[in-house]
């Protein structure tokens, strides 16, 4: 069951096309990574989902219904370009932004108190925004974006400006939100956090979607039956062992141990191990699974050369 569906969404600006017939499908209660190089059209797509701008063509469905301005109160948005009124007090500002999303004043105060305590920032309530550091401001923005319990949350580079401790705090909260039934769109260039958090991804490049699917499916799809073997024993002997049907890609020694990268045919890993066993001492044997980073770079490069 999907929470949000975009079908063939196209958006032209006066001098370029930002989205070219892009379709995505965001499953309920998942974290959906929206990836792509700069200028690929991610922000445009996010703005369309937020109804900040309207697409030229295409259908948008929220919970199976056509996207409507009323859905705004069901969507939370933390934009990449974000800020707060510098001269306003933290509490007043948070209440104001929450009220704009349709929460009553008293509800907003109650919820804010809860989150401020949770993030240990309740002493900031009466301080002006300009007195806070960037990271502190980001925390408030994060809280404000989730305060109205939206069904769909959109985070555009949520971790920028945070220290590692707060990044972890945020990650935990994001995972908790998902477990409690919120669907999250997560746009970032940080591939490590994609692997850590995302269930699904879509990769945009040059206004087009070039990859979409579950993270582990994509990774499996991109693995190439390559294994890494750490061993001790004769390094020079290895090429003669690895010959029938296998392909030796690397063979190095470091810190007294040697490491080889070997490509097999499909399902040939047991065969490989048994042919290696008589000759060397195996310390470790791992399948090399491509990182999202590699897949990202590879797919984008492919897409760009095919043009």
């Amino acid at each position, binding site marked *: 069951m999907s929470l949000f569906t975009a079908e063939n969404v196209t958006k032209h600006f006066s001098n370029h096309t930002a989205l070219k017939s892009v379709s995505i499908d965001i499953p309920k209660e998942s974290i959906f990574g929206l990836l792509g190089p700069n200028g690929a059209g991610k922000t445009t797509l996010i703005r369309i989902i937020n109804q900040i701008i309207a697409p030229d063509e295409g259908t948008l469905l929220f919970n199976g219904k056509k996207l409507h301005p009323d859905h705004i109160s069901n969507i939370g948005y933390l*934009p990449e370009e974000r800020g707060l009124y510098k001269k306003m007090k933290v509490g007043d500002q948070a209440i104001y932004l929450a009220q704009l999303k349709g929460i009553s004043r008293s509800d907003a105060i109650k919820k804010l108190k809860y989150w401020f305590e949770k993030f240990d920032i309740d002493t900031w309530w009466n301080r002006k925004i300009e007195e806070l550091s960037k990271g502190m401001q980001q925390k408030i923005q994060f809280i404000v974006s989730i305060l109205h319990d939206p069904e769909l949350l959109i985070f555009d580079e949520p971790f920028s400006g945070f220290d590692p401790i707060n990044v972890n705090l945020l990650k935990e909260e994001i995972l908790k939100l998902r477990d409690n039934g919120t669907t999250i769109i997560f746009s970032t260039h940080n591939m490590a956090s994609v692997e850590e958090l995302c269930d699904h991804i879509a990769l945009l490049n040059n206004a087009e979607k070039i990859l979409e699917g579950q993270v582990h499916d994509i990774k499996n799809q991109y693995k190439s039956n390559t294994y890494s073997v750490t061993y001790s024993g004769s390094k020079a002997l290895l090429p003669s062992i690895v010959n029938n049907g296998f392909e030796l890609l690397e063979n190095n020694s470091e810190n007294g141990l040697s490491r080889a990268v070997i490509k097999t045919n499909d399902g040939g890993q047991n065969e490989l191990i048994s042919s290696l066993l008589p000759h060397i001492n195996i310390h470790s044997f791992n399948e090399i699974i491509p990182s999202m980073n590699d897949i990202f770079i590879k797919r984008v490069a492919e897409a760009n050369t095919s043009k």
Partner: protein
Amino acid sequence: MKKIKLIIQREYLTRVRKKSFIVMTLLGPILMAAIMIVPVFLASMSNNKERKIAVLDETGIFFEKFQNDDYLTFHHLYTDLNTAKDNFKNTGDYALLYIPKTEVALPTSAILYSEKQPNIDIKSYIRRQMSKELEEQKLLLQINKLNLNETDREIAMDIPESIKTSINLSTFKLNEGEAEQKTFTEVAMAVGIFSGILIYFFIFFFGAQVMRGVVEEKTSRIVEVIISSVKPFQLMMGKIVGIGLVGLTQLTLWIVLTFTITGIFQIVFQDKIPSQSEALMGNNQLVPGATIPQVTDDDSGVAVIFEAISSVNFGVIIFSFLFFFLTGFLLYAALFAAVGSAVDSEVDTQQFMLPITLPLILAMVMAQFIIRNPDGPVAFWFSIIPLTSPIIMMTRIPFGVPYYELALSMGLLVVGFLFTTWMAGRIYRTGILMYGKKASYRDLWKWIRFKG
């Protein structure tokens, strides 16, 4: 609608609570009160020069009875009233006191003719002199009666009461029609220019605040968070209306405070000069008995001005002022908002300011000429074109403008306001999301035409 109310509320409250707003609100009225009080004050200071008063006494009672003091000298005329009035201008006299012959033995009323509103000190001086003389005369009469009727003690008891005499001193301005016309023109000019300047100042000051507010939202990057909750147009209108209300609040406070300050000043001012307040009270006593129309009891300059203002169509002025004030602001504020949305920082606003400032400054410059010829074709066209009409029409209205012209000007201004708001809305919704790129007029044109 609820959201736009929230925006208006925030824009309003954050500005009204600012120190600069409070300071401006307090300083403005002090300045304006000073402008109103100082000339009156100076006028009263310069009263102490010698003044000659001609006395035309038909009763003959007061012959040689008026005593000169340091500033006042009296001399008697022996002509009829009309000749005296005709000659008045050439004599250099300050006023002409006319005591008409009456049926009864002793007169109790007199008329003071003068070119300017006569000074209250002079009035009370004359009144005191006259009643003193009359009381002496009465006493003489009573004593004569007593002589005839020596045993009648009752009458003697009545003497103190019956000789108390109050004088009904009416004032008349000579050359009434001409002078009135002069005051009217002066007041109309003052009201016109003052309204025009106020609107000009208001549009510039608060329009710039709208622009600064938009730039602030854009540079602080909060705008994207907000427009994911409300439509850009709502945000823009909320800001404009909120700031407009701030301006209206300031204006209202200015007017209320200015009058409070001038009012307080008048009271304090009068207490310091007892003769004046005393005279004022004496004067008021006499009003019920006054039979001659056009008696003016209050001499303060402010009252004279108000009298003249009310001779202009006050209702029309107030209504038009509020209308041109608000609609003019809305029209320009939308343009200011559009400029704010198209730039990345306040410094960059200069390049788009010209189309806004040019008509405003032109209107202000033209107002000085139009005030001298408020019915000419230049005046007409400038007061019809929406960009200049708020200022120019306001300077013309105190002189009286045909209602169809007023209606046309107002109608076009509303159309102009709708048009600029529509145009600004289109620039705004694209502009606020554009970061880092310097927009040109061509870009703005593209944004206006750009659909959806």
